[in-house]
Structure formats: C-alpha cells, structure tokens
C-alpha cells in the first residue's frame, strides 16, 4: 500500500539521527539545549571549518536519539559556508550527518518568514517534524495559530513548543517515537519552472524529489559530489551546458511562488485577536537604543562596564588561581624527590597549567556579558549602530565587542568573533584584535615608563599620559591594520548586512551558562594543549644548557670562597642569573642580539623577548632573574638595577629614553602571546592565519621600534 510506504517508523531501531534546522533566532539552540542539556559535544562537520554540535537523549530505554544542531539558515540555498553545511547534511544521503528525521524549528511569532525554509525542506520529501517554537510569545501577542490546520496544509506533523519554558518538549519527544509521515505533495510546483531540465536530470540521477533536481540546476557549482558520483556530476554538467539557465531568475521565481503559497496558508491558520504588544515595546526600546545620542551613550556605558569587570573583577579569581598554583608547587617541591622530573612537573607543567587556567575568569566574565547581550537581542542593535563606522575599516558592526574586549585580553575577544557572519570581516577582526593593548602589557609598560619617564605631580602626569598614548597607539595600529587588510584579503563572499533585529527578550540563564561552559571547555581542551606544550618547551629552554654548564655554575657557588663571600640567598639569586645566561634561552637571546641591536636591545632584553612568548608579563620576571633581583614583587629593585645597567659599548646607561620607548613600542605591536596564537589556530582551524599574524605583528613591531629608536637616539 502506498500510504504505508510514506510513513516511517523508528520504533525498531536503537539509535536515531535527528537534525535540528531552522532560521537564526528561531530558538533552535534553546531547543537543542533543552533537549540534550549537558550531553553535548562539539566536533567538525566533514571537510569544513564549521563547529558541529551534537547531543544525546534517551527516548526510550532502548532508543537513543542523536541530535545534530545544524547552522541556522534562512533558506536551503547554499550561499555561505554555514548554509552549505546545512544544505549538504539534508540533501546528500552519503553525508555522515544525513538524518533519519529532521526537526524544523520555526519561530511561531514570525511564522511567514520561517515557513520559507520549512517549505523547501518539505519539498525534499524527507520525514520531518515542525516544531513551532515561541508559542508563549504568540499567545502573549493575542494571536491564535490553528496547529491542526497548519499540519494538514503542510502535510507534516506539527508540534507547538516553548523551548524557553520547556513546554511541549514531551509532545515533541513523543512525536519522534510515533510513525512520521513523509510529505506527499509538492509545496510548490518547481517542475513548471524548468520542466525540461528537471526531467532530463531525473532521468540520469536517482533523486527523491523534483526540488532536489531543481537545486542541482540552480546551485550546481556549490554542490559537493563524492568521487564515486563524479560520473553523475559530469552528466548533470553536460545537461546544464547544453541549455544555459538563468539560475538567479529561477530561484527568484521559486521564492516568489513559495511566499505566495505561504501567505495563503498563514492567512488561513493565524487569527489575530488584538493589537501587537511586544513589538511596540521593542519599537520603543529601539527608539532609545538606536538613538543618535542615547544609543552611543548607552553602548559606551555597557562597554565600560564590561571592560571594567574583565579588568578588575577577574583580577581577584586570577590572583587566587595563581596563589593556589604557587601553594601546590611549594608543596610538591617539599614532598617530591629533587630531580629532573620534579623540576619538569613544577616549573614546566604546573607553571604551564597555571598560565592556562588563569585566563578562565576573564573568559567566563566576557562570555557572561556577551551571552546576555546576544540573548536579549541587544547585540544586533550594537551592530546596527556601529556598522557604518566599522565598515570603513573592513570590519563589521559586530567587531566592536571583540576589539574592545581585546583591551582586557585577546583570548576571549578572539573567541567572541564567532558572531561575525562574513568570513572576511571575521578574519580581519581576529587578525587585528591582538594589537589592542591587553592587560598583560600593563606590567611591562608600568615598569618601563617608571624607568624612563620622570614622575611629575600636578594635573599633567607624564607617566599617565604616556600610558594612555600606548593604549591609543594600539588602537590606531589595529584600525590601520584592518584598513590595510580590507584591500589585501580577497573574498568571494559578499558582505551583507541583511539580518533580523530580533524582538527584545529577557536572557535565559541556562543558555548563558551553556555558552560559558562551552567556551571554557573549548579553551581548556583545545588551546590549552598548545599552551601547555609551549610552556614545557620554554621551561626546557630556560632551565637547560649544553655541556653541563649549569652544574659547573652550581659547583662554582658551592666553593668555600663563595660561601664565605655571599649569604645562601644571595648565592641563589646570583647563580640563577648566571644559569639563565648559560641556558638555551640565554644562548638564543645572545644569538638574536645582532638582529635586535638596531632597536637598541642587548642580549639581556633578547632573553626577555624569548621568554615573553609564554606571556608578555613574564618580561618583568625575566628581568628580575637576569638582574639578580631575588624578590620579583619588588619592582623598585628591578627598576634601580635596570637604571644602573651600563652599556659596555657606550659606557652610558643601557636604558635610555630611546631604548625604553623602542621596547615599549615593540611590546605594543609584537605577537608575544602563545595563548593568543593557540586560540587563533583553534578559531580559524588553520596554521596559516596564526603564522601570518605572528609574522605581520612581529614585523610591524620590529620596524616601528627601529624608527622610534633612531628618532630618539
């Protein structure tokens, strides 16, 4: 019987693959989170650099459903990378994510536009359930949707849900267990748009629906064919070459036809009962939030608040984390036998772990704010009021938050560029964000400023002015670099700003929590690995030396004459300095001296540049070790030691104004943060981008320092 063939039942299976697909802002992710909770994992869609989120739910003791959260899309036209992922997963049965069932999530309060994607998927003739989300909002607006009628009109199962309040989830789960009808009739007759070619294609390729053939015609170049299907590809290409088709016109006609049918269905299924309330609330709020004065005042206040929180609130937990690691390290040093392994554990691994975990508070704070701004709908307005300004620099309205967060720390900032949908604009944002002066540069600036700029009193404090200028220089460099990259970077993808400004809603704490959890996990596992590895390498470089040189130094300071001359503490400090000089890091610092001499740097600064790669603030600690200052907390001592340092060639003080400024400019521009590089690698999923970033920033730093040094010398 034909009717039976069109109904698919999964009651016999043990696992079920369910794809979640829907428009951006349809509440798809909220539904995904509500269904799977913490049983989620992040992976990759095959062959592309788009994150794939999947989650699990036991429907019955013997049946587990795997939910795949496909990227949000307005249509099935594979234009952007995200859309291609969704398109391929739904249209290509060979795709590992090809679902048994597809749940289409639609925003019921915005039914017309959401039904467009629904109608396309219906025409693919695959088993679907339509989850009509945000039913609570529809009710609040005083509208009534006739779900039974809608289901009849569309020919698919429709379940009303409110993912935020978890209403209707039970019904949705139940719907998965029951037999699921496959749409029988075409939503629109695509065949009449290109009947001849569709007939020819269905002759050579076995397809489930005319719409699939239609997609092959209109999006041929975007469709992925496996090697096995290369003959299919050739056949279709031959048909298309024989009769050239205006694809854009074809798709436009399709869209117009679809909306014509949708308008009819919506009219039949929705009853408006009262004037719209939520919209007018959103309208009023928008009048303030996008106002030409208040809009910016409010945005700057929000930014200021975020920035202050990351800067100050995070400093407390960061200090606890560092202190706890010191306590653990001290304890381990006491308990473990002395030796190479203990040394590796304490100074390599523990120090590396501390350097990773210490970023977590900043990441948590920034993403708490970002998730709230995103969830309430305010982020879209920020893009709206900033787009014109940012566009001039090849950036996007959404680049503002990452750039400003970069002042605190580039790591969470770069992780927050995900919301920028244009590839080119996102890349530029990622590339220039580390030029913003982050909080790790602050200790370096403070030390150097106090070294070369005299302390003045009164309203114009030169030290403060210089510090401010350094932040400003970082910002200008970021914008200039963005402007340059705008011309260099080529992109086939056109930058659009056609996007929905969603209705304002209260944020959802579960969503906020899951975003934070996800980001922290991502950072600790993915970037953390790289950071830990480099930490261990740096530890090795600074604590090992060729030919037992370190042992010789130890022996030298154990000799009776040294023991008489210095206290044990003094001996430890002096020998540490000598050991660092003898170490591989010291050798490296000396090796790069010829290269950095034109900038006014000696090998001692060279060593600090090498070790700073772990994190910029390590500069201060390295300087303390080199200049044999036992107590690193005492910057006064480091400063006076550095002031006394004499350049052997000139006989004058080493840290002149020229050297100081040259060094500060170097730290302002150079890419000296392995954690940032690790995150850029994670976010771009390519070695190319962190490599380019490293080279361009280091080159910028080198030549800027060169100029500064020679101007001031």
């Amino acid at each position, binding site marked *: 019987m034909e009717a039976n063939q069109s109904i698919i039942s999964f009651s016999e299976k043990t696992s079920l693959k369910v794809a979640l697909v829907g428009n951006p802002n349809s509440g798809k992710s909220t539904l995904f989170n509500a269904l799977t909770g913490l049983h989620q994992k992040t992976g990759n869609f095959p062959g592309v650099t788009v994150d794939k989120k999947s989650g699990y739910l036991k429907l019955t003791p013997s049946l587990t459903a795997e939910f795949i959260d496909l990227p949000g899309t307005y249509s099935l036209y594979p234009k952007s990378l995200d859309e291609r992922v969704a398109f391929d997963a739904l249209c290509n049965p060979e795709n590992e994510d090809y679902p048994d069932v597809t749940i289409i999530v639609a925003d019921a309060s*915005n039914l017309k536009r959401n039904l467009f994607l629904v109608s396309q998927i219906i025409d693919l003739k695959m088993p679907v359930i339509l989850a009509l989300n945000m039913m609570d909002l529809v009710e609040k607006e005083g509208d009534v949707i006739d779900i039974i009628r809608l289901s009849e009109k569309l020919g698919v199962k429709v379940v009303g849900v409110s993912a935020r309040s978890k209403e209707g989830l039970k019904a949705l789960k139940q719907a998965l267990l029951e037999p699921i009808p496959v749409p029988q009739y075409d939503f629109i007759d695509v065949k009449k748009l290109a009947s001849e070619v569709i007939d020819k294609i269905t002759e050579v390729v076995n397809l489930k629906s005319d719409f699939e053939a239609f997609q092959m015609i209109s999006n041929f170049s975007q469709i992925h064919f496996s090697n096995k299907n290369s003959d299919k590809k050739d056949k279709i290409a031959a048909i298309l070459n024989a009769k050239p088709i205006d694809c854009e016109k074809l798709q436009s006609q399709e869209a117009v036809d679809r909306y014509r049918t949708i308008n009819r269905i919506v009219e039949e299924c929705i009853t408006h009962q009262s004037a719209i309330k939520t919209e007018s609330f959103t309208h009023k709020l928008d009048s303030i939030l996008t106002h*030409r004065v208040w809009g910016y005042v409010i945005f700057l206040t929000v930014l200021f608040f975020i920035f202050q929180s990351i800067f100050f609130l995070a400093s407390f937990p960061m200090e606890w984390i560092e202190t706890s690691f010191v306590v653990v390290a001290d304890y381990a040093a006491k308990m473990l036998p002395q030796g190479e392994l203990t040394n590796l554990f304490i100074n390599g691994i523990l120090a590396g772990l501390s350097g990773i975990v210490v970023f977590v508070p900043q990441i948590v704070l920034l993403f708490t704010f970002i998730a709230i701004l995103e969830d309430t709908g305010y982020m879209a307005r920020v893009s709206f009021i900033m787009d014109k300004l940012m566009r001039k620099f090849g950036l996007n309205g959404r680049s503002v938050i990452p750039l400003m967060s970069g002042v605190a720390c580039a790591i969470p900032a770069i992780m927050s560029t995900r919301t920028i949908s244009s590839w080119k604009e996102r890349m530029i944002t990622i590339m220039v964000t580390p030029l913003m002066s982050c909080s790790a540069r602050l200790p370096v600036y403070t030390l150097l400023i106090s070294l070369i700029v005299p302390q003045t009193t009164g309203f114009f404090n030169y030290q403060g002015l210089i510090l401010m200028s350094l932040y400003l220089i970082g910002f200008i460099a970021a914008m200039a670099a963005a402007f340059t990259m705008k011309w260099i970077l080529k992109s086939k993808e056109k930058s659009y700003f056609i996007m*929905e400004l969603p209705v304002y809603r209260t944020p959802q704490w579960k969503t906020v929590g899951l975003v934070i959890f996800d980001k922290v996990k991502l950072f600790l596992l993915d970037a953390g690995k790289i950071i830990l590895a480099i930490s261990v390498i740096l530890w090795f470089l600074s604590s090992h030396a060729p030919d037992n040189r370190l042992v010789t130094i130890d022996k030298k300071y154990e000799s009776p004459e040294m023991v008489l001359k210095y206290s044990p503490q003094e001996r430890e400090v002096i020998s540490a300095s000598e050991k660092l000089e003898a170490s591989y890091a010291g050798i490296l610092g000396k090796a790069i001296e010829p290269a950095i001499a034109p900038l006014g740097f000696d090998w001692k600064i060279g060593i600090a540049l090498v070790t700073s790669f772990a994190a910029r603030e390590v500069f201060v600690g390295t300087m303390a070790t080199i200049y044999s200052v036992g107590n690193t907390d005492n910057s006064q001592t480091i400063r006076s030691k550095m002031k006394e340092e004499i350049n052997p060639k000139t006989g004058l003080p080493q840290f002149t104004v020229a050297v100081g400024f040259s060094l500060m400019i170097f730290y302002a521009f150079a890419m000296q943060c392995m954690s940032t590089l690790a995150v850029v690698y994670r976010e771009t999923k390519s070695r190319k981008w962190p490599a380019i970033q490293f080279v361009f920033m280091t080159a910028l730093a080198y030549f800027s320092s060169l100029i500064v040094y020679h101007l001031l010398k």
Partner: protein
Amino acid sequence: MAKNLAQLKIGESAVIDSFTDKRMALKLLEMGCTPGEVVKLDHIAPMGDPIAIRVAGYLLSLRKAEASTVLVSLLAANI
C-alpha cells in the same frame, strides 16, 4: 510614486515593486521581501546607515546600498 527603499523616511510605508540587483533580490526574497509586500521604515541608524524596516511581521536591518536595489511605491496614506 516610485522610489527606492533607501529613500523612505521614518514611519513611511510602501509596497515592494521590483529589484534592480538579481543577487541582492534573492537574498531579500528569502527574507520575505517579495513584490507586493508592504514594508515600513522603522529606524535609521545614527550615522544614516543601515536602516531597519518592518516586513512580513518582523524587523529587518539592511544597509542603504542594499535597500537602494529595491524599488517601491509609496502607500497613498503617506502622500
């Protein structure tokens, strides 16, 4: 009166007639801006660009360059 979408003033409503850019049209069509649909200009960003229009029951933002590819007729109520 024929105009393009970027020329509307705040609060004005118009009916979409046609598009001048085929690729842009496709993007706008899938977002519900179909010929015959009524649109209303709700907000203009502080620097004059982008703009936000009400269409198909929701708020859509687009740049002026994008909006200027949409030809519209002002609704009689506005004239």
